[in-house]
C-alpha cells in the first residue's frame, strides 16, 4: 500500500508540471492489446494501478492475439464499435493509418495531455508517423542485437569485453573464431569451410535472419523504399552492404551456409559460434542458461551510420463514429500518457521490452545488465514502417535475402528480383489508396 501511495505521489508530481490530468466526468475505456504471453500479467497490473490512481477513468482491457486484431479492426472501425485505445505493431501501423482506421494525435492534444514526444527515442516515435502527422505513442520495443559468447572469444584470442564495432573488426573477429574440425583457422591453407568446429557469426535464411541485411542496408545509407514508397532495396549501397554479409559465408567461410535459425540458436547456446545477431528476445533464454555472454549493438558493416532493425507496439486511438464522447478521447490520452511515463515503462521492461526513452535506459537497474550494452544506441533502431504496403515489400525482401544467402542468386540479382516483385505488388496496392 505504502509503495503504491508513493508511486501515485511521484506520478502526480511528474504529470502535474506539464498537464492538467483528466478532470471530466467518470468514463470507462476499452483497451485492446496483443500482449497475451508472459507480458499479459504485467500489463494487467499496470492497468489496475492506473484504475486505482484515476478514479474517474476505468480502463477495461482485452488481450487477444495480434493477428486477430488486425483482422477485426477494420470491421470494428467501419461499424463504429472500435475500442477506445488499440495497440498496433510497427509492421501494420502505416497500413491502418493510410486506410484511415486510426486518428491523428494533434500537437495541441499531445500538449494538453502532457505528452512530451521528445522524450521518446526519435526513430521509435516516428514509427507511427505518416505524412507529417503522429498517430501513436510507443509502449513497447524490441530490436535486433548481436549476442556474443565471451568464453569463445577469449579462446580465440579476442578481448571478450570489446565486441567488434566496424566491418574490419567484425571480419577479423569472425576469422579468429572460425576453426574447422581438423583445427585449421579460416584463411589458412587447407581450411575446410564445410566442416566447421566453431565459427564466427550466425547467418540464416528466415525473416529474422534477413534483419541483418536490413541493418546493413540502412547502415550503408540505403533503405527498403524510396521517397515515393516504391521498393528500393537494390540500390548500389544496398548491394554493397548485403554482399559483405554474403561474403562472410561464401568467401571467408566464417558463417555456415544453408543454416536455419534453430540450428544457429542451438550452436550459440552450445558455445560453437562467437556472434549471434538476432532478436533481443533471446536474452532471457541465455540468462537462464547461465551463459557467459554479452549483448552489443549491430556492428557497423556499412559506412554511413549506426542502424539496426526494431519492432514496436504503439498506443493508438482508432477512428470513432461522429457522436463519440469527447471526454473518452481526453481520458484515453491521459491513459496513454500515463502508460508511457518512465515509471511505467521501467515496469514494462521486465517483460523483455527495451526502454522506449533515454530517461528509462539510464535507470540504475540496468547498470550491470548485459542488455545495457546496446542502450547507448537505442536511438539508432529503425522499424519497418512508413509505407502502407510494408507486407508487399517485406516478403520479397526476405526471399531476396534467402536467395542471396544460399548462393542461389548473386546478391545483385536477388535484390533486383525482390524489388521487381515488390513493385509489381505495390502497383496493385496503390489502387486501394486512390
Amino acid at each position: 500500500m505504502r509503495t503504491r501511495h508513493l508511486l501515485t505521489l511521484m506520478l502526480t508530481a511528474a504529470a502535474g508540471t506539464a498537464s492538467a490530468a483528466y478532470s471530466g466526468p467518470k468514463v470507462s475505456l476499452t483497451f485492446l492489446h496483443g500482449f497475451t504471453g508472459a507480458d499479459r500479467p504485467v500489463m494487467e497490473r499496470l492497468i489496475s494501478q492506473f484504475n486505482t490512481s484515476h478514479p474517474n477513468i476505468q480502463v477495461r482491457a482485452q488481450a487477444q492475439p495480434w493477428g486477430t486484431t488486425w483482422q477485426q479492426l477494420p470491421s470494428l472501425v467501419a461499424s463504429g464499435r472500435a475500442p477506445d485505445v488499440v495497440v498496433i505493431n510497427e509492421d501494420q501501423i502505416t497500413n491502418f493509418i493510410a486506410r484511415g482506421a486510426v486518428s491523428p494525435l494533434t500537437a495541441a492534444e499531445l500538449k494538453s495531455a502532457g505528452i512530451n514526444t521528445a522524450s521518446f527515442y526519435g526513430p521509435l516515435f516516428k514509427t507511427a508517423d505518416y505524412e507529417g502527422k503522429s498517430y501513436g505513442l510507443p509502449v513497447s520495443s524490441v530490436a535486433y542485437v548481436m549476442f556474443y559468447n565471451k568464453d569463445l572469444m577469449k579462446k580465440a584470442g579476442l578481448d571478450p569485453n570489446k565486441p567488434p564495432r566496424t566491418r574490419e573488426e567484425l571480419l577479423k573477429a569472425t576469422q579468429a573464431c572460425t576453426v574447422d574440425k581438423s583445427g585449421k583457422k579460416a584463411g589458412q591453407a587447407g581450411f575446410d569451410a564445410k566442416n566447421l568446429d566453431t565459427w564466427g557469426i550466425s547467418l540464416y535464411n528466415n525473416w529474422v535472419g534477413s534483419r541483418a541485411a536490413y541493418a546493413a542496408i540502412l547502415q550503408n545509407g540505403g533503405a527498403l523504399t524510396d521517397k515515393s514508397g516504391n521498393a528500393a532495396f537494390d540500390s548500389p549501397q544496398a548491394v554493397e552492404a548485403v554482399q559483405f554479409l554474403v561474403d562472410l559465408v561464401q568467401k571467408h567461410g566464417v558463417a555456415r551456409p544453408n543454416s536455419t535459425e534453430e540450428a544457429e540458436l542451438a550452436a550459440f547456446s552450445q558455445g560453437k559460434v562467437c556472434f549471434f545477431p538476432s532478436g533481443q528476445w533471446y536474452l532471457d533464454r541465455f540468462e537462464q542458461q547461465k551463459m557467459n555472454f554479452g549483448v552489443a549493438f549491430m556492428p557497423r558493416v556499412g559506412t554511413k551510420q549506426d542502424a539496426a532493425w526494431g519492432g514496436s507496439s504503439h498506443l493508438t486511438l482508432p477512428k470513432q463514429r461522429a457522436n463519440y464522447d469527447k471526454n473518452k478521447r481526453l481520458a484515453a490520452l491521459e491513459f496513454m500518457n500515463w502508460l508511457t511515463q518512465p515509471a511505467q515503462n521501467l515496469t514494462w521492461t521486465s517483460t523483455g521490452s527495451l526502454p522506449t526513452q533515454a530517461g528509462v535506459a539510464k535507470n540504475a537497474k540496468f547498470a550491470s545488465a548485459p542488455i545495457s550494452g546496446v542502450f547507448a544506441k537505442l536511438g539508432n533502431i529503425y522499424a519497418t514502417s512508413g509505407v502502407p504496403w510494408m507486407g508487399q515489400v517485406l516478403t520479397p525482401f526476405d526471399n531476396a535475402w534467402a536467395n542471396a544467402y544460399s548462393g542461389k542468386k548473386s546478391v545483385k540479382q536477388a535484390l533486383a528480383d525482390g524489388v521487381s516483385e515488390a513493385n509489381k505488388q505495390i502497383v496493385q496496392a496503390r489502387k486501394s489508396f486512390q
Partner: protein
Amino acid sequence: MTPSTHTSAPHVRKRGGNTVEPYLYLLPFAIFFALFVIYPVGYGFFVSLHRWDLLADTRPFVGFEYYKNLFTPGTPQAEFFWNSMKNTVFFTAVSVPLLVFTSLGLALLLYRPIIGRAFFRAVFFLPGILTVSVMGILWRWMFDNQIGMVNAARTEIFGLQPLAFLSVEGLAWVPIIIGTVWWTIGFNMTLYLAALGNISQSYYEAAELDGASAWAKFRFITWPLLAPITLFVVVTTALASFQLFGQSLVITAGGPNRSTQSTIQYITEEAFTNNQFSSASAMAFMFGLVMLIFTFLQFRIMARDARGEN
C-alpha cells in the same frame, strides 16, 4: 448431376397430410446453412468484384479485374497463384496415393490377430490428435539442415553428406510429405479397419476351399469389397491435401522461393499480409472452382468403378 444413384429415397407423404412438417425439421439447418454458408459465399463473391476495403469511403465495382489478373502474365497474382496451384497439385498427387495405400497396408497388417495389435493401432492413430503446429515443428527439427535427426543419421551412421532439406527446392517437400503421412495416416487406417470388419468371413472360407492364394483373395475379394470405402478415402484425402496449409507454413514457411507455398497460404498472404481482400477472394473462388471440377471428375470415374465391381 448427382454423383450417387442412392439419393432418391422413396417419397413418403401422409395422405391429405401436412406438407409443412418436414420443412420445419429442415428449417434449423437451413437457417444455419444460409447464414454461415450461402451468405458468406455470396458476400465473398461480391467482394471479389469490387475493390474492397471495409475502411475505404468508396468500394468501386471493378468487375472481373481480379480474376483477369490471375490470367494476365506478368502480374504477381498470376505468377504466384499458379505457382501455388502447381505446388498444391504436386503435393496432392504425391501424398494421396501414399496416404491411401499405406493406410490400406497398415489396416491389412493390423486387422490380423497379431501380438500388440491394439498398441500398434494406437501408435499409428495417435499422431493425428496433434495440432498442425506441433507436428510441423517436430518435422522441421527432424529435417533441420544442421541439427536435424535425419542429417545426424546420414552423417554419423551412413557417413553421407548432410542435405539441406529446408533450403533446397524439391527437397523441401520431403519433410512436408513424410510429416503429413505420419500425421494423418491413422484416420484412413481406422476407416479401412472398420471396412475390413464388415467383409463376411464366408467369402474367404469359400475362396480357401477353392485353393485361392493370399494375393487372389485380396485381388478378388478384399479390394473390390473395399471399393466404396476407397472412394470415400480417396476423395476426402484429396480434398484435405488440396487444403494443404499448416504443414508447409510451419515446416518451410512456403520456401525456399515459394517452392512449397500452398494455394491457401498464398491466398492468406494476399489477404492479410498484402491487405488485398478482393484479389484474395477472387483467388479463393478460382481455387474452389478447380477443386469442384476435380472432385466431380473423381466422383464420375471412381463411383463408376465402385458400382461396377459391387
